[in-house]
């Protein structure tokens, strides 16, 4: 049984008050409470302030390239589907550079949990707008305000078939821990979009902003109701932020549909190599 300190790497270098602190702690707590330990979980980090968690959380890990954490995570899962596999990414990372990989990972229902730091800016490159930035938001790369309207990650993932969509708030860690645990326990693709105030560069989407507009989904909310989930996801477009498991449905995971992996993980497949080689060679006669 691992402890919190087992998971603690370097002291975080995030700005004081940044939402990343809350996400970092919540993820470690969730992992401890689910009996994971640094040696039986693989975390793939993107590049950004979010991705800098690579040095603060101990695990078998990949500190990937900007936007590429998801395909790395899929590759890990296919090679060893016994390992819990998580991607920790930024919104520029996952909804900008790597939007392609998010959508096609959803199509395959790959059994990975994607945790997105939704702060509407590129924090680490000093604050340019991210694809989730509200239209008109000013930043160093958009001094007159961004012309593009924001991408909606919830409707994007729901309509393309994600089997678990959750939204959390970095300022409400107890709720976030429970949400992360549900996502981590979900078999199949799980997206957890975490509203994360960037206190240094995003003066619009502050803790205050989210406290005024975020609300926990009611106890009786049925996350398996697609049309209700669609309604909830569309609220993001009007600046309303439902918190909790927005949608969840059970579908076979990618690796569960691979007959090759029935008995054991790919990495443990026993070798009948030469025998198979000569059989295949015969087909060229």
């Amino acid at each position, binding site marked *: 049984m*691992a402890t919190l300190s*087992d998971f603690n*790497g*370097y002291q975080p270098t995030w700005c004081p008050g940044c939402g990343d602190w809350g996400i970092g702690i919540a993820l470690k707590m969730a992992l401890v409470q689910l009996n994971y*330990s*640094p*040696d*039986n979980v*693989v975390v*793939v*980090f993107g*590049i950004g302030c979010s991705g*800098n968690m*690579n*040095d603060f959380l*101990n*695990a*078998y*890990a*990949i*500190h*990937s*390239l900007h936007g*590429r954490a998801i*395909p*790395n*995570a*899929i*590759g*890990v*899962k*296919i*090679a*060893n589907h*016994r*390992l819990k596999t998580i991607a920790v990414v930024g919104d520029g990372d996952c909804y900008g550079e790597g939007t*392609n*990989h998010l*959508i*096609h990972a959803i199509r395959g229902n790959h059994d990975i949990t994607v945790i997105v730091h939704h702060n509407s800016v590129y924090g680490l490159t000093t604050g340019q707008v991210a694809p989730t930035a509200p239209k008109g938001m000013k930043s160093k790369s958009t001094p007159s305000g961004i012309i593009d309207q924001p991408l909606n990650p919830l409707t994007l993932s729901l309509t393309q078939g994600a089997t678990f969509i959750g939204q959390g708030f970095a300022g409400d860690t107890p709720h976030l821990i429970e949400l992360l645990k549900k996502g981590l326990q979900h078999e199949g693709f799980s997206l957890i979009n975490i509203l994360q105030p960037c206190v240094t560069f995003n003066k619009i989407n502050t803790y205050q902003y989210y406290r005024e507009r975020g609300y926990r989904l009611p106890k009786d909310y049925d996350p398996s109701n697609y049309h209700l989930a669609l309604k909830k996801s569309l609220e993001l477009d009007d600046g309303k932020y439902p918190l909790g498991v927005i949608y969840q449905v059970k579908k076979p995971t990618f690796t569960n549909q*691979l*007959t*090759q*992996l029935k008995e054991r993980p*790919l*990495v443990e*497949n026993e*070798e*009948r*190599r*030469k025998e*198979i*080689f*000569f*059989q*295949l*060679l015969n087909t*060229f*006669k």
Partner: protein
Amino acid sequence: MMTFTWKIGGEAGFGINAAGSIFSKFVARSGYYAFDYIEYPSLIRGGHNALEVVIADEEIGTLREKIDFLVCLNAETYQKHSVRLHEKSLILYDQAEFQPNGTGIKITLPFKTILSDLGGDLVMKNTVALGASVALLGGEIKILLEILKEQFAKKGERVIQFNQKFAQAGYEYILNHYPTLIHRILTYKKNNNKVVISGNDAFSLGVVLADCRFYSAYPMTPSSSVLHTLASWQEKIGMVVRHAEDEISVINHAIGSSFAGVRSAVGTSGGGFALMVESVSFAGIAEIPLVIFLAQRPGPATGMPTWTEQGDLLFAIFAGHGEFPKIVLAPSDHLEMLRLAAEAFNLADIYQTPVIVLSDMFLSESHRTIDEEKIRKLAHQYQIDRGKLIKNLERTEKIKPFLRYQITEDGISPCLLPGTDGFFYQANSYEHLEDSHTTEEALERKKQVEKRNRKIQTYLKNHFQTPKVYGNLEHASMVFVSWGSNKEAILAAIRDLEEKNNLKTALIHFSYLYPLDKNVLLSLFDKNKQYLLVENNSLSQFGNLLSMTLGIEIERKILRYDGRPITSYFIIDELKKNGDIK
């Protein structure tokens, strides 16, 4: 050596490729050797497809100048290829379509009427032509019928018989109408075990031999048939084959699965490889083993998708930002493709870095008959070497970081299988300490750069293979220098030059292209010989690599960059143009 070139041409979508591979198999099962090469446009229908099969009584891996038997399924085939006919060449055609006007023995066969009589549609012309060819070359029709049975096995008995009927019809038409023209080219010889494989098939077999269990790719000519072949084998051999959404996803799938301990490879062509190079650099610093199959085609950009060129060499060698070691191999023929494909996985594991296996459309899509024994021997010799991969390690009570990037003398650090109890570490795309945490410290950075670079010396010492020398360097007046798929064409030119022009030449042929060991190679080039660079590109990229590494410049160059492969007769024409020979 006896050689006989049979060539079939027609419109795309009329089964030229299928006819070619059936004929190649027929030649092998009749006890002979064959080499076939197809030229086709980047279209699904229309345009001109032409496939030639060189029959020989010894192993052959190159094309010959003359066409001995031209099968014209349309007039365009005759227009395009009659220039290579000689007076004794056989020309099979349907006079209802056109009348050949040049040299050669005209053999008209009423394809259309035969097909309509027996209720077959036009796309069956190739099967009739196969039957006719077997007859004209004195082959055994039952071998052809057997192959057709296997070919259409999945389509059921009715389709099998339907095709056999047309083969039989073509065969009998020749026996009845042209008994005097029967040649004794393919009379059945006891068939010692031979296989017919393409360069792509050879790579696929190498993947299996090396126990690679993850292959990801995005379709791109001429690499796609590896994806198709491995996809069809995956359940049987217990590997996973993944057609991902784009090439960046493809290589990052493989980086993830390789990190998790599974031997992994990707396949693509120049344009797809270009999308992968940021991640090649990632595998370089994170020190993750990766085999990349790069089947070249004429660029730049979309270029000429179904033709051949050696135009991506320097791009592949210097691919990826920043400095990190990589290994670039270029198999010279189908057998070496199989051997080096399997070897590439050992090198990738040993040096924990990307290994690029270069092919091109000519090697990838040509088929060659190889004695099964040679492949069995190679397979038995091959031993898997996973380098410093550790699968279990005694843990301490408290979980602790594993020194994934430990500074070592040979530059290679032990690598613990992720998931091993009691440890953790990260594969880090940032510069890092020995324990894999990110660093920006000057000394730590310097240590890691020097450690990664030491892998190059270790490779040159332990695994670099010097080029093979063919012919006698001392006596040769001219020495060809080349790499990859040009070898067989040059060896054929060497034979022709000796026989017809009494000119002694030799060949220095490279398959291990990068990094190169300067000290070992200099001695090869210090002879005051006339060296002649042969490359299938316009900027003599390998010549530039040699001058970069050895500081020597090879002035004389035979370069081809029109999308067609280097052939012995192209080389000989160039020597004639330059006055080296009459």
